[in-house]
């Protein structure tokens, strides 16, 4: 049989990756929903989702802590493949081609393209800042002990960084919808070889190489019969 079959047979995210990602995603969304009411009265009615304003005030920081922890795991898991390479710069230079879907013009891409890597680093930065500023204004635990100017700075910072994070989220989510197959990739963890070759050609090569080696090793013990079925 052939890898060309477009059925997703290529593992992109492990079960753990996926669980981890979605836990972060869900808590992030909850944080957005519970944070926006304090961000602007326009969103006040969202507090209803959390059992009222005061409950929202109480829950938000705890959800935050949970997400931070989850994100930490994810950050470790995705660290290597998120390191920025020279070719990523080139990719970013050609962001117009990316948006215009002129993918043939793009430089080769590894497991993650520059956009995904940026999301990784921006979120890493934002969440670190949100954690610190959040702790500084956390009533009733820490805020009381924090000098007033620092509290004011933290409040401002928390809001600003949250804004950045939300924008990033929107882009991230949109990309998921826009790039066909990637949403499925994070849901079921597998992509088709063709998808991989199109969006992440270098990674595709790596995976192909892996597959070849694998077959080579296994062929030594192969019986003629089963050899017939292998490519």
């Amino acid at each position, binding site marked *: 049989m052939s890898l060309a079959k477009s059925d997703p047979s290529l593992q992109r995210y492990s079960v753990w990756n996926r669980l981890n990602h979605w836990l972060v995603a869900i808590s992030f969304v909850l944080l957005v929903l519970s944070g926006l009411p304090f961000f*602007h*009265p*326009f969103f*006040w*009615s969202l507090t209803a989702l959390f059992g009222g304003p005061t409950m929202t005030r109480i829950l938000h920081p705890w959800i935050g802590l949970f997400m931070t922890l989850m994100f930490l795991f994810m950050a470790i898991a995705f660290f290597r493949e998120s390191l920025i390479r020279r070719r990523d710069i080139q990719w970013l230079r050609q962001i117009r081609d990316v948006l215009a879907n002129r993918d043939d013009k793009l430089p080769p891409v590894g497991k993650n393209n520059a956009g995904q890597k940026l999301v990784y680093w921006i979120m890493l930065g934002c969440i670190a800042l949100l954690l610190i500023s959040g702790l500084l204004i956390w009533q009733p635990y820490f805020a009381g002990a924090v000098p007033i100017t620092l509290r004011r700075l933290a409040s401002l910072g928390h809001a600003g960084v949250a804004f950045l994070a939300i924008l990033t989220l929107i882009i991230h989510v949109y990309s998921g919808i826009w790039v066909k197959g990637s949403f499925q990739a994070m849901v079921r963890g597998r992509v088709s070889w063709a998808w991989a070759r199109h969006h992440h050609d270098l990674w595709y090569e790596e995976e192909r190489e892996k597959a070849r080696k694998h077959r080579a090793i296994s062929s030594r013990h192969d019986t003629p019969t089963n050899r017939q079925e292998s490519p």
Partner: protein
Amino acid sequence: MTLQVTRRQFFKLGATGLATSSMAMMGFAPEPAVASVRHFKLTGAKITRSNCTYCSVGCGVLLYSRGDAAINVVDDIYHVEGDPDHPVSRGSLCPKGAGLLDYVKSDSRLRYPQVREAGSNEWKRIGWDEALDRIARHMKDDRDANFEADDDDGNIVNRWTTTGMLAASASTNETAYLTQKVVRSLGMVAFDNQARV
């Protein structure tokens, strides 16, 4: 710059437009703010004119109590403030006067007669009759035993020096007068008040 825009206006410029429309859209209008945030605690209180009995300025105070002195109610003082009609205090009070409520309501107020027996280390609650009977008995025994009808020079002195009394500094003239009357009828001379301290 001629255009005067205060901070709040500026803040609103940015916000109001967006907000008003959207709130209406989201069908949520501000719930009414409670008018006077707290209930007015003097409504319906009984007001009694009194005088502060700490220092000798004699400020007028108004005692506010629950209950209207009807037969079925035991009035309860719950607020004290200055009497604006009083020519000296004109409604003002010092920190002691302003805190009178906690004096009237103090946990240290005594509620029933007690006795501490000789050598004992505790108070024992007793009834008024027992208390007054025992006190009267003590007084009479001491008076009868130590009353001086005359002194060594043969003067008639009719005095009782072995029991003394201190009169209050904050009691009323009526109490004071009755005390003076009783004390002198007993021939008591070791009698004083707080004028000196």
